[in-house]
């Protein structure tokens, strides 16, 4: 499992692995938002936490099809699936690698981008904590979507359609926690709900992902 994880990480960091793409996309979204809503800084401060969450979610979505597609094309996914490693472990490792490559950098970049959007100073803690708790769920749910569409040519758009509704609870609680933090309110409840969703998703969804991956590789 550790070998697989380090292999995925190495592949992602190497040229053409798309390591920085998600981050760049996140940056661009954040830069474009003021053009869309106007230069009113008070407005930016109010919507900053939501925009950052949405940007992180979209950046995460953008990189999902890489989880299985490359391995599927060159046949290594078949090898991995027939390896003694259970498929459940395989998809968990894939999700973990995706999170380390995409989710964690997004979390790290969020406070920097928050400066651009005038996020109130008291909001940073809640923002980072909510992203830290929420992005693993995004990666795991996304792995399920990627496993569903792995055999489909040009499945990217379909995968967005499948994955985005599944992101709704995570987004609601995550953005709500970040918003409450930015407004100086108590954010314990949404943060706990978010943590609950993430834990539940990590515990259960790999079984569904593994089931659909086995179907797709049949």
């Amino acid at each position: 499992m550790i070998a697989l994880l380090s292999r995925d990480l190495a592949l992602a960091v190497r040229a053409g692995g798309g390591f920085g793409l998600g981050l760049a996309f996140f940056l661009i979204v954040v830069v474009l938002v003021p053009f869309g809503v106007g230069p009113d800084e008070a407005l930016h401060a109010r919507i900053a936490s939501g925009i950052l969450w949405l940007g992180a979610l979209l950046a995460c979505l953008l990189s999902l099809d890489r989880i299985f597609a490359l391995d599927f094309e060159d046949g290594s996914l078949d090898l991995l699936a027939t390896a003694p490693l259970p498929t459940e472990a395989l998809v968990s490792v894939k999700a973990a690698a995706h999170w380390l490559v995409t989710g964690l950098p997004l979390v790290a970049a969020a406070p920097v981008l928050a400066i651009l959007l005038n996020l109130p100073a008291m909001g940073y803690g809640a923002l980072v904590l909510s992203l830290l708790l929420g992005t693993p769920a995004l990666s795991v749910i996304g792995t399920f979507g990627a496993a569903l569409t792995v055999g489909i040519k040009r499945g990217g758009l379909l995968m967005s359609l499948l994955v985005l509704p599944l992101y709704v609870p995570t987004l609601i609680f995550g953005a709500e926690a970040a918003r409450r933090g930015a407004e100086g309110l108590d954010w314990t409840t949404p943060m706990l709900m978010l943590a609950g969703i993430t834990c539940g998703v990590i515990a259960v969804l790999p079984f569904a992902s593994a089931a659909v991956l086995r179907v797709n590789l049949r």
Partner: protein
Amino acid sequence: MASVWEYANPKKFIETTDRILPWVAGLAVVTLVGGLIWGFFFTPADYRQGSTVKIIYLHVPSALMAINAWLMMLVASLIWIVRRHHVSALAARAAAPVGAVMTVIALVTGAIWGQPMWGTWWAWDPRLTSFLILFLFYLGYIALWQAIENDDTAADLTSVLCLVGSVFAVLSRYAVNFWNQGLHQGASLSMDKEQNVADVFWYPLIVCMAGFVLLFVALVFLRTQTEIRARRMRALLARERLS
């Protein structure tokens, strides 16, 4: 006594539904037309809502069926996963577009009703939002069925999606509830007949709900037959090409 699983045989299913279908369809038309005419022409206007109360005869039954169609798909998906009866998977596939249309009807009639009553077409109210999310789930489900060529693979994948989607739909419902307290009145109906719907409106509403249920059953029967036939034809053509 024959077991219910006998109807999992496609041929038997087509024979049986062929016999039942005209009755169900006829009954659906009678109750639907009767209920809607009763509701539209022969119920008084509400003293507060005016004549917009008549929209309830479309809004409530379609919302009911939008949710029940998903539940039916969930049960059918479970049957497919556990017992692998093809008819079950195809019935789930057949029900999805019907459920999606019901969701649209519920959303549209709700918006038209909301405009004069709440002063807005759309509010990010928990119930409305959850229905919109439900509609997205229907779209994804239908799109996944259409994207996959192999029938068994498609059935497997969509049934897992249906299970996972159900969990997330319920989660979203609570999340949305938490996120925004709504404008929408609580369930105006329940089995013990709440007082907020008067009898004048209640009886035609029951008839309309029965009509929508029958309509749904008839459509699912018909569409499942279509799916069975389409699949059989694909199988025959494939065999012909091989020989």
